[in-house]
C-alpha cells in the first residue's frame, strides 16, 4: 500500500527497542536507588528482607533441579558430539579440557540463565502483571508503599545473586555430565577427566562466567519486572507480557553474552 511502510516499520521498531532499553535502564536506576533503604537501612528492611528471602527461594532454590538436569544433559551431549571428531585427530584426551572451558566460560551461565528465564522470568512477569491488572500495584501506591522498593528490589537482587550461585552449580553439573559419558562410554576414568578439567580451566574462565551470570540475572529480572508492571488490558495483557519477557530476555541474554565475549576477547581475559 505504501512504499515507505517497511521503512517506517524499521524506524518504529528501532524507536521501540531504544525506548525499551531506556526504560530498563530507568528501572535499574530506580531499583538501585531504593536497594539500600529497602534492604539494609530504614523501616522497609523488615519486609524487604523477608521478601528477599522468599524470592531467593522461589527463583534460586526451586530452580536448582531443572537447571542441573538441563546443563548435565548439555555436558553429556557435548562429549557425545565431540568424541568422534576428536577421535579422528587422536585427541580424545582433550575432551575434558574443551567441555570444562566451554561450560565455565559460556554454556553453564548461558544455559542456566535461559532456563531461569522460563522458570522465574515468566513467572515474575505474570505475577506482577496480574497484580497490576487487579489494582494491587495501585493499592500499594495508595498506601504509600513504593512498588519498586517493595516488589522490584527483592526480585532483582534475589535473581542477580541466585543466578551467580546457579551458574556455579551449572558449571559443576555440565562438567559432571561430560564426565559420566566419558567414563561410561569412552573409558576415561573420572580422576583423569577431572584432573584435565582443572588443569585446562583457569580461575579466570570461572570468574568471567560468573561476572556474566550476575549481569544475566539482573537483566532477566529487570525485563520481567518492567514488562509485568506495565501490563495493559487484562488477562490478554498478562499473557502478552509473559511471552515478551521470555523472547526479549533470550535476545537480551544473547547480546549481553556477545558483548562480554567480545570485550574479554580483546582484553585477552
Amino acid at each position, binding site marked *: 500500500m505504501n512504499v515507505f511502510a517497511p521503512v517506517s516499520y524499521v524506524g518504529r521498531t528501532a524507536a521501540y527497542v531504544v525506548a525499551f532499553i531506556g526504560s530498563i535502564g530507568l528501572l535499574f536506576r530506580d531499583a538501585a536507588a531504593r536497594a539500600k533503604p529497602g534492604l539494609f537501612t530504614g523501616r522497609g528492611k523488615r519486609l524487604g528482607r523477608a521478601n528477599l528471602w522468599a524470592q531467593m527461594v522461589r527463583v534460586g532454590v526451586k530452580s536448582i533441579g531443572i537447571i542441573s538436569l538441563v546443563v548435565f544433559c548439555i555436558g553429556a551431549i557435548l562429549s557425545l558430539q565431540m568424541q568422534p571428531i576428536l577421535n579422528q585427530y587422536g585427541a580424545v584426551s582433550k575432551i575434558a579440557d574443551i567441555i570444562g572451558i566451554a561450560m565455565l566460560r559460556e554454556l553453564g551461565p548461558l544455559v542456566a540463565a535461559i532456563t531461569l528465564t522460563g522458570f522465574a522470568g515468566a513467572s515474575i512477569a505474570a505475577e506482577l502483571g496480574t497484580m497490576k491488572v487487579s489494582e494491587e500495584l495501585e493499592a500499594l501506591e*495508595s498506601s504509600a508503599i513504593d512498588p519498586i522498593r517493595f516488589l522490584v528490589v527483592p526480585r532483582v537482587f534475589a535473581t542477580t545473586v541466585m543466578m551467580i550461585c546457579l551458574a556455579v552449580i551449572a558449571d559443576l553439573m555440565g562438567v559432571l555430565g561430560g564426565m559420566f559419558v566419558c567414563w561410561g562410554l569412552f573409558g576415561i576414568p573420572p580422576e583423569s577427566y577431572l584432573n584435565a578439567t582443572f588443569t585446562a580451566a583457569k580461575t579466570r574462565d570461572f570468574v568471567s562466567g560468573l561476572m556474566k551470570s550476575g549481569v544475566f540475572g539482573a537483566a532477566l529480572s529487570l525485563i520481567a519486572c518492567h514488562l509485568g508492571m506495565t501490563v495493559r488490558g487484562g488477562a490478554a495483557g498478562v499473557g502478552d507480557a509473559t511471552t515478551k519477557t521470555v523472547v526479549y530476555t533470550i535476545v537480551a541474554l544473547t547480546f549481553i553474552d556477545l558483548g562480554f565475549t567480545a570485550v574479554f576477547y580483546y582484553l585477552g581475559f
Partner: protein
Amino acid sequence: MSDIAIKVDHATKRYGERVILDQIELDVIKGETLVIMGGSGSGKSTLLRMMIGTVPVDGGNIAVMGRTICGLSTEELSEYHKSIGVLFQSGALYNSMTLGENVALPLREHTDLQDETIDIIVKIKLELVGLREHTDKLPSEISGGMKKRAGLARAMALDPQILFYDEPSAGLDPVTSAEIDELIIKLNKVLGVTSVVVTHEMDSAFRIADRMVLLDRGKFIRCGTPAEMRASTDPFVKQFINGLTEGPLTERRQSDEYVDDLLDIKV
C-alpha cells in the same frame, strides 16, 4: 475554609486531545460522605484517582486539608498517601498474603510497632468489618463481598482521615451491597472520617450520601443533597437518578451519522 477536607479547583484532565474532565469544581466537607455519580466514561473514576494522587492533574488544582496534592515529589505524595485510605473496586487485596497480613502491611511499613501490637490492631480492624475469624484466610478463599470488607479494613489500617471508595457495591448482590453501605455509614459516623464514594448504583448512592455530585462526559452537572437531587428538575439529573432511557444523556447516541454510516457501507 477550615471545614473543607478536599477542594477541587478547576481540575482538568486530558488524554491527548480528549478532555476527560473539564474544569471540575467541588468541595468535600469534613466528616461528610460525598457520592460522585455518573455513567461509564463520565470521568468519575479519573476524578477519584486525581484526588488520590495516582493520576496527575493537567490543569487546575486539588487541595486536601488545605495543602495541594498537585506537583508533589514522590516523598511528599507518599506522606499524603499515609493520611488516606482507598478501597478499590475489586478490593485489590494482595493475593499472596492472608487477610491479616494484608491489613498488617501498611502498619509494618510505616510504623515501628511491635508484631504483637500490630496483631492487635489487625484484629480490631478486621472486627470492625466483621472478618476477625477469617484473619488467616487467603483472598482466594473468600467471597467478593468479604474481599471488599477486607480491603476496607486494610484501607483503615493507618486510621486515615479520608476514605475513598471506588464502586464499593459493583458486582455484589443487593444484600451484600447493602451491608457494604451500612459499613460505609457506620465508619463515617463512628470514626468521623470523610468519605468520597464513586458509584453508579442509585440505591446505594441515596443510602449513604450526605451530598451527591453528578458528572457527565467530564462535565460537572449538579451537586446537592439526596433530597435536592430527587427534587431537581434538571433533565440530566432526572434521567440519571431514575434510570430513564430517554433524555439528554442518551440523545447524543442516536446520532444522524448512523444512516450515513449504513448508506456508506452499501456504496
